[in-house]
């Protein structure tokens, strides 16, 4: 059965001078799945994420979210349309509480931010959705703690909570397991497995164990191009993937 | 508008441009290598001029004074780097702006305390007092031509130092990768002091040479400093090539604007109004130029880092 396609990349190309960082990349993300994107260092993963998130503009090709053309939109516009994103390196505002970090995303969802009068700290229409997102990540006990006092794993969870607060149609998670340790990694894996049923996840991950366990489909990026595509079993056995990862 | 006037004004613009380049190259080098914004650069200009004026007056030799001015500026620069500036490299730009603003207050008021508020007089040497005949027949002061020559010589010397010597290699490495030159065993602290002193020496040289054209007084470095900022913003902060191009552009546009804009307005409005509007517009011209360039290239024409 084919489920609904929420995010699709169509023939993306991006070059920096002579370097072709992205070559004819096409892939999609369907409802209810985790689609993992893997590849050795320098394969062009960051460049591809940049194009999806809106930091970079592709030279040719298109990106669509639920049928909407994203290609010429800014980062903020894409986020408002429902593209949630977490970063490889934590991008939270350290001095602020967890709640305030999440609330900004809720704020964006409710229209423009040129509201100068009502204090946010007593605004239930902001607090409640933010609290809900924290509940989903089992973080409510840390709601008013400054991010700077959180552990590495908790920060990862806050990042995902921020993305969830946008009520996203698709999630783009950039190495969420990095630096987590076995316990934190297992915890997050569990969370992602239930999360994907609501929001499909495009997962960029280095931790192969996690990828093979979590992903419904895997695409392998090497030298800017997708060289293999399929489920875990297929990818494990693909000779080109083995060559790219194990060969010289 | 005669061709003679145009040539004369072009050379005036070139002279202003070469002086701006001496100021801007130090500023841009310090920013490119150390990531530091230094408002006190104009103080080195002033120190150079004062030292030159004092030593010239005492010894009767302009050249001796000039050497003293350059050395005094370099020494002041090195000292300031050792005491204050090196604490600022890892600080936010706001702190750098304020600390170097504090240095301006200290240098300006300190100089006023030592030398008083009235300007010192510094004359170009006798043997440079003559005039040269320009193509078209105008007579032009030799000293100003010499200033242009010195400016061009410094530009060439800087190019050679940066592209051909070990010091230049380290400076270029420092721009692109601070950790790497640390790992290569280069003493970064010493390199920074040296680069800073070098920038100060160039500012001192500019101050000394211009001091002989205008007067040597407290605050003389400030208008030049702000023009130099415009230059490096236009050229792209951190780029020596950008500083050279920007300096000549600003020098020529500013000089020609002041001469030709009032005349231009004279064509379609009464003379008194034309002079007023033309002069006001000419004073704003380089800032308008900067705004236009930045509207298209927010990082300047020769952005060093993208």
């Amino acid at each position: 059965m084919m489920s609904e396609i929420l995010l699709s990349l169509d023939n993306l190309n991006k070059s920096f001078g002579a370097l072709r960082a992205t070559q004819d990349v096409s892939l999609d993300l369907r409802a209810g799945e985790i689609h993992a994107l893997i590849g050795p260092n320098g394969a062009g993963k960051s460049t591809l994420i940049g194009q999806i998130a809106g930091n970079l503009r592709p030279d040719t090709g298109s990106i669509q979210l639920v049928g909407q053309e994203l290609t010429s939109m800014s980062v903020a516009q894409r986020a408002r349309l429902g593209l949630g994103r977490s970063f490889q390196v934590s991008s939270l505002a350290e001095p602020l509480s967890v709640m305030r970090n999440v609330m900004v995303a809720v704020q964006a969802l409710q229209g423009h931010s040129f509201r100068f009068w009502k204090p946010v700290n007593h605004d239930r229409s902001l607090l409640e959705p933010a609290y809900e997102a924290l509940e989903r990540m089992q973080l409510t006990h840390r709601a008013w703690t400054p991010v700077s006092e959180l552990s590495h794993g908790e920060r990862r969870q806050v990042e995902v909570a921020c993305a969830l607060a946008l009520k996203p149609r698709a999630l783009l998670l950039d190495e969420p397991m990095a630096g987590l340790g076995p316990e934190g990694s297992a915890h997050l894996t569990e969370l992602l497995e239930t999360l994907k049923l609501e929001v499909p996840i495009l997962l960029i991950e280095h931790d192969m164990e996690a990828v093979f366990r979590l992903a419904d489909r895997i695409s392998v990026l090497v030298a800017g191009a997708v060289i293999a595509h399929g489920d875990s079993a297929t990818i494990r056995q693909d000779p080109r993937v083995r060559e790219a990862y194990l060969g010289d | 508008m005669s061709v003679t006037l145009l040539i004369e004004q072009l050379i005036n613009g070139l002279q202003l441009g070469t002086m701006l380049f001496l100021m801007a190259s130090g500023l841009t080098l310090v920013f490119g290598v150390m990531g530091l914004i230094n408002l006190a650069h104009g103080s080195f200009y002033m120190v150079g001029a004062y030292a030159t004026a004092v030593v010239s007056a005492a010894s009767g030799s302009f050249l001796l004074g000039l050497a003293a001015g350059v050395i005094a500026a370099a020494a002041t620069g090195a000292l300031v780097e050792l005491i204050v500036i090196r604490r600022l490299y890892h600080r936010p730009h706001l702190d750098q702006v304020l600390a170097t603003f504090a240095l301006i207050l200290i240098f300006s008021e300190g100089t006023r305390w030592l030398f008083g508020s009235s300007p010192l007089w510094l004359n170009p040497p006798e043997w440079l007092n003559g005039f040269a005949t320009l193509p078209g027949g105008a007579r032009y002061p030799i000293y100003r031509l010499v200033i242009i020559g010195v400016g061009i010589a410094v530009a060439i010397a800087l190019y050679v130092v940066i592209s051909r010597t070990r010091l230049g290699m380290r400076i270029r490495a420092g721009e692109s990768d601070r950790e790497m030159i640390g790992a290569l065993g280069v003493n970064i602290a010493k390199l920074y002091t040296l680069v800073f002193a070098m920038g100060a020496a160039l500012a001192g040289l500019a101050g000394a040479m211009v001091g002989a054209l205008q007067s040597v007084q407290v605050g003389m470095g400030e208008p030049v400093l702000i023009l130099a900022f415009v230059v490096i913003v236009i050229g792209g902060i951190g780029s020596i090539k950008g500083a050279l191009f920007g300096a000549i552009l600003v020098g020529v546009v500013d000089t020609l604007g002041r001469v030709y804009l009032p005349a231009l307005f004279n064509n379609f409005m009464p003379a008194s109004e034309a002079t007023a509007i033309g002069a006001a517009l000419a004073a704003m011209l380089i800032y308008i130029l900067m705004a236009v360039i930045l509207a298209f290239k927010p990082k300047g024409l020769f952005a060093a880092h993208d």
Partner: protein
Amino acid sequence: MTNLDSSSTAEPGVAQHRARWHDRKGLVQIALLAGLLLVPIGLHLLGHVYYVNLASKVTLIAMAAVGLNLAIGYGGMVSFGHAAYFGLGGYVAGISAYHAFDATALITWPVSIPGSDNMLVIWLAAIVLCGLLALAIGAISLRTTGVYFIMITLAFAQMVYYFANSWPSYGGEDGLPIYLRNGLPGLDTNDALTFFLISFAGLVLAMAITSRLMKSRFGAALTMARLNDTRLATAGINPYPIRLAAFVISAMITGLAGALYADLNGFVSPSMLSWHFSGELMVIVILGGVGRLYGPLAGAVLFVMMETLLGGLTEYWQLFLGLLLLVVVLFAKHGVMGWLAGREHDE
């Protein structure tokens, strides 16, 4: 849902940091504001008009710094050109008064507008014009960041400075006197205490607006733009218009202070537009404590006191200002308010 309100949580949340009138920070703030209000009133009763005018000066400089603090402290936009708005506000007061005095038209085309000596009209004009100037300057400058932003705001302010300097109609570099202080219906603005109270009301209003603004959604977005603009964009809010709006509001506050300052001195000149003044405003914000509501007030009190006391002792007082500033920047980053009232938090 019990954990929603930050004040009901057991965690070390934001509520504990908020000023209460009876804690140290609250006391320092009340003392500052009450001192600024009561000391001039007392001195006025004793007949020292000079000190009342000095207090007006402190108040208006503080108000200009409140504007700058919104840009630098709350918005993270290091503007080195706020003298442009202070001076423009001043020139609005000066030029309007000049034409009212002469009974000539301010402009004749496309419609004829006479000058006005009504402060309300002047304030409105100053706020609108400073907002428009900041909109134009900010729109270009905010495309850049870091050192570029600092230098570009400086350069634009210099542009305004040189324009005022070389435009002869309103005094050029000699400046423009205001022969009769502009008036407010029903009040005697020539009375030093009345003028001080008007200025004081302006300062309190500017601080109240800043405070309210920073607690609102706009303030939350601006805080995030300063701390982490990637986060803000990823959350779906474009940082650029948020910053631009804050920059414009900041300029309006500084411009209004400038309009009053020109009336206080009965004179406006390009020195109000000079880059030295932009630098001094930054110094005041930093001395007081950057990004703190009462920082500009503390900074202005300290600055004008130093100017008056040290300036009375030595002609070279700015040398000592420079040394103090250097020490504060290098070693005491939280300013006077940080020292008196403890550290500030962003929520």
